[in-house]
């Protein structure tokens, strides 16, 4: 069944279009920055972008920062929201279940396809961004500081910061990729749950995005500080801490924990609902 789900994912034109768009946006940004040499001032614009002009090997991280706020969650929510609701909407769900494919098995196969999609999206973005970065900005050694490359003025602090070897940057990028993939799985789990509730793939995807937007609004709101640590998007940007020296683990750990809880809770809810649901689509 897993193979069937992967085959469906691969043979679906939409999967490829979304991956091309996800990888294309950072490339577009890189071309503009490289041509004009007008990086946003440090602290403004996408994280790390200001540092990129000094070394292209940081561009994967900058690229992830570019797609993280909207593009990537939208793509993941669309794929996850489509997983059950899409089959229900097209009428194929009843034939799959009458085949029979066990409901738990189907859900598990959908989840694995979702994980594969999310991971390949994040990795593909990192790889294309690395190639773009090296090609357009070169691969000078990078300095990292306790303040990080994002918030502080890179030009002023790069000399005082410790140097990062390409291997270290690669390792930290891998950490960032893993963190972002897990964060996206949190989104995916919410969309997957909604996908078992409604027969509209669009509704499920938009529902998950609405949850994210709500979370983003509450994160910026001081009055909501009581629930702040539990919001799904609260630690989304914590992966930037991978690029500080030394790595600041506190928020990264919390981020992993929060996403883990969201994934477990929503997957359990999806399973409980889908396994007992009347299939009337």
């Amino acid at each position, binding site marked *: 069944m897993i193979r069937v789900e992967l085959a*469906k994912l691969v043979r679906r034109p939409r999967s490829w279009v979304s991956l091309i768009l996800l990888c294309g946006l950072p490339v577009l940004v890189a071309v503009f920055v490289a041509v004009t040499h007008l990086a946003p001032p440090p602290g403004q614009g996408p994280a790390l972008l200001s540092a990129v002009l000094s070394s292209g090997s940081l561009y994967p991280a900058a690229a992830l920062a570019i797609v993280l706020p909207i593009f990537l969650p939208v793509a993941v929510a669309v794929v996850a929201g489509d997983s059950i609701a899409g089959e229900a909407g097209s*009428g194929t769900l*009843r034939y*799959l*279940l009458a085949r029979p494919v066990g409901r738990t098995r189907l859900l598990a196969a959908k989840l694995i396809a979702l994980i594969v999609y999310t991971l390949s999206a994040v990795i593909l973005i990192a790889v294309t961004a690395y190639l773009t970065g090296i090609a357009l900005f070169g691969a000078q050694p990078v300095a990292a500081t306790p303040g990080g490359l994002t918030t502080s003025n890179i030009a002023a602090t790069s000399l005082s910061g410790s140097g990062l070897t390409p291997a270290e940057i690669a390792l930290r990028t891998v950490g960032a990729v893993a963190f972002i993939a897990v964060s996206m799985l949190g989104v995916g789990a919410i969309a997957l749950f909604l996908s078992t509730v409604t027969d509209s793939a669009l509704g499920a995807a938009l529902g998950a995005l609405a949850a994210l937007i709500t979370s983003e609004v509450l994160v910026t709101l001081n009055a909501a500080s009581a629930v702040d640590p539990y919001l799904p998007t609260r630690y989304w940007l914590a992966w930037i801490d991978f690029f500080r020296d030394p790595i600041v683990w506190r928020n990264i750990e919390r981020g992993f924990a929060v996403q883990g809880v969201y994934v477990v809770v929503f997957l359990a809810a999806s399973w409980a609902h889908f396994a007992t649901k009347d*299939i009337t689509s």
Partner: protein
Amino acid sequence: MIVTRGLTKRYGHLLVVDQVDLDVREGDRYGFLGPNGSGKTTVVRMLLGLVYATSGEITVLGQPVPKRAAQVLPSIGALVEGPSAYGHLSGRANLALIDAAGKSGSRRTRGSRIAATLDQVGLGGIDNRPVKRYSLGMRQRLGLAAALLRTPKLLILDEPTNGLDPQGIREIRDLLIELNAAGTTVFLSSHQLSEVEQLCTRVGIVNRGRLVRQDDLETLRALTGRSIVHTPDTDRAREVLDGQIERAESGRLVVADADTAALNSRLVAYGVRVTEIAAERRSLEDVVLSVTGSGSDRVDVLDEERG
């Protein structure tokens, strides 16, 4: 093959299926008849374990459903509420996916099995166009192919001839009769009387969620004890059959006499020319209309609502 006891499904306060006791025997071509919205599809979905019954028991192929659905379903081919497929893929790719899903058939024989099944439903020469460019009838045939892919012991078909032209309907009917002769039990749910009348050996009639009649088609279509006589000599026939004629239209008489042979010789003896004579049977339509009301897609104002 299919036995249900007191099968009931409720959605909130709405009683969709009410105490249905189905009995489909091995080798039957069973017609499950009922107006739109009478609960046919819900029963079919419950048989396949898609919808869970509120109460009652279902036994399919000797196994309880939905408890043992995983063991039963591989021997069932189903077509529920119209065919569906992944529109961007070809018919063959769709069949390959559905075959690979679940406990998949052998991969080695998949190609040849798909080709054989497509041949069976009359899509043997189909090209690689995506299913979204299929006509309604082609989709219907593809759905049927998916149901036949694993040479099922039991076929559960919901409106299988939707969207087919008269020739296609004929073809599918012949195919089903052929499969039935080879040992496949066919359970066909339909609102089309003629389809059931021409195909089925046993009929269950459902109305407003209740199974109101279940019997052999022959029994349902019993003789009425009347004969139909066609003759150009209506007036002469009237004299001969004085008092026995229940209705007379131009050239067609309904005679209250079941013995067609005796009636014929009597008419001929008196010089009445008979062009056609036959014992009257109840049509399935009469039977169905006598036990069901109007379909539930018709929503009338209730008297108390009129106030």
